[in-house]
């Protein structure tokens, strides 16, 4: 779910870089407000590498397999570090695997980053659950943030592709394309949400400190 080079018109590319620049600036400002921001950098960096590698895990959905996006999980665990982490991850993908693109880096980072930051906020809703249902609340909030992170990214991706590439698609074809692509992403959203919930519950059991900053 990365827009490659060559697809988008220049105004969208510039808009993507402007949005990503603003979001990154906002995130870095929040990070600077931490008591010791430098101490958090190695943790965020190694977790960025771990997220990048974890996204190589393929989930078999016969006859094919899907790989996870994990932007909701990134927001859930890294908070404001999610935006720099996504930017770096996409930069690596663009220059190492030529997956995504350099001109579309801003658009792709905004497409993944905005949902990640919103997923971070959704994960905070777990505090609304009573103490007796803490674990249930954690699972539900993690599922919602994981599914929402992917769902919103997919919606932005589909919207961008359908509205910017084919200049002469008729309205009914455009509606059918949007509907098909949206329906195709629903099971993937459920898988991503369930994976995020399972992972967060695993972390709470084994290393709850990783969730403390969230």
């Amino acid at each position, binding site marked *: 779910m990365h827009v*490659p080079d*060559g697809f988008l018109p220049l105004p969208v590319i510039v808009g993507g870089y402007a949005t990503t620049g603003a979001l990154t600036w906002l995130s870095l400002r929040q990070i600077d407000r931490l008591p010791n921001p430098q101490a958090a950098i190695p943790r965020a*960096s*190694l977790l960025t590498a771990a997220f990048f590698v974890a996204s190589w*895990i393929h989930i078999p959905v016969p006859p094919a397999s899907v790989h996870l996006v994990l932007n909701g999980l990134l927001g859930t665990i890294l908070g404001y570090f999610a935006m720099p982490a996504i930017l770096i991850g996409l930069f690596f993908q663009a220059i190492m695997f030529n997956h995504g693109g350099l001109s579309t880096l801003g658009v792709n980072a905004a497409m993944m980053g905005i949902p990640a930051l919103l997923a971070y906020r959704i994960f905070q809703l777990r505090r609304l659950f009573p103490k007796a249902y803490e674990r249930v609340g954690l699972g539900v909030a993690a599922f919602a943030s994981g599914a929402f992170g992917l769902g919103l990214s997919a919606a932005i991706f589909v919207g961008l592709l359908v509205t910017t590439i*084919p200049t002469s698609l008729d309205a009914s074809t455009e509606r059918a394309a949007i509907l098909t692509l949206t329906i195709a992403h629903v099971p993937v959203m459920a*898988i991503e949400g369930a994976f995020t919930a399972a992972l967060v519950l695993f972390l709470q059991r084994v290393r709850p400190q990783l969730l403390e900053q969230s």
Partner: protein
Amino acid sequence: MVARRPALDAHCHLDSPIHRWEPRAKLVGITLLIFAFAFVHQLALLPALLLVSLSLYALSGLPWRFWRDRLRLPGTLLLSMLVLLPFLSGGTPLVSWGAIAIYREGCFAILPIACRFVSILTLGLIAFGTMPFATLIEAMRALGLPCILADMTLLSYRYLDDTGNMLIQMRQAMRLRGWQGDRFSWQHLSVLASVAGTLLIRSFERSEQVYRAMVLRGYGQARAVSRLQSPQLRDIGATVWVACVALTIAALEWHLRSLSQFGFGG
């Protein structure tokens, strides 16, 4: 299956005018070209895009095999995304079989996308394949990349291989214990989530040791002095030349668009 990371700067030791181009000046020049190329939609300008990018690639002395290998996977992905366009987009059929038709407009829509894709990807290879990764980040830092982003990029890059190897070992251990992950079940999903969770926990624990080691070596006390030398006149000249090419392409695109709007051309 874990993807293997191809060497990004495997050919940065070669000697060519592009390799000798000062990193900051090179990044500025190539970025301008990338944005100019992204602006182009006119079919008449597409050969110019390919000519400029492939000429610069030839000048860089990078092997063509490297270019071909780098293009193969994203090119296949691009084709899979574009293959439906001639069938869906347009109103002038070129060929038709009953209800299925290939439209002229759809075919012409593919050309600019494919040419921009190949040209921009080639420019990226020229920029990042002709200098070591550490120099690239240093140049980006000198051009205004925030310190936190620069540090995070270098550290993530440093530990990417280690983390990838960790995942390979974990998957091997799972297979040796009889794991068969070729079908979907929620139980399998939960196991894979535990694998990813273990990866995060190990990275988290390692980061604490890394931070202590970095502090012992003076991290955060003073910024490292840049090893980049000031750009020479020839570096600035090369950037100005490339900027002129970018501006010319953008101006021609603008001009051709104006002409087509007033009905003087296509």
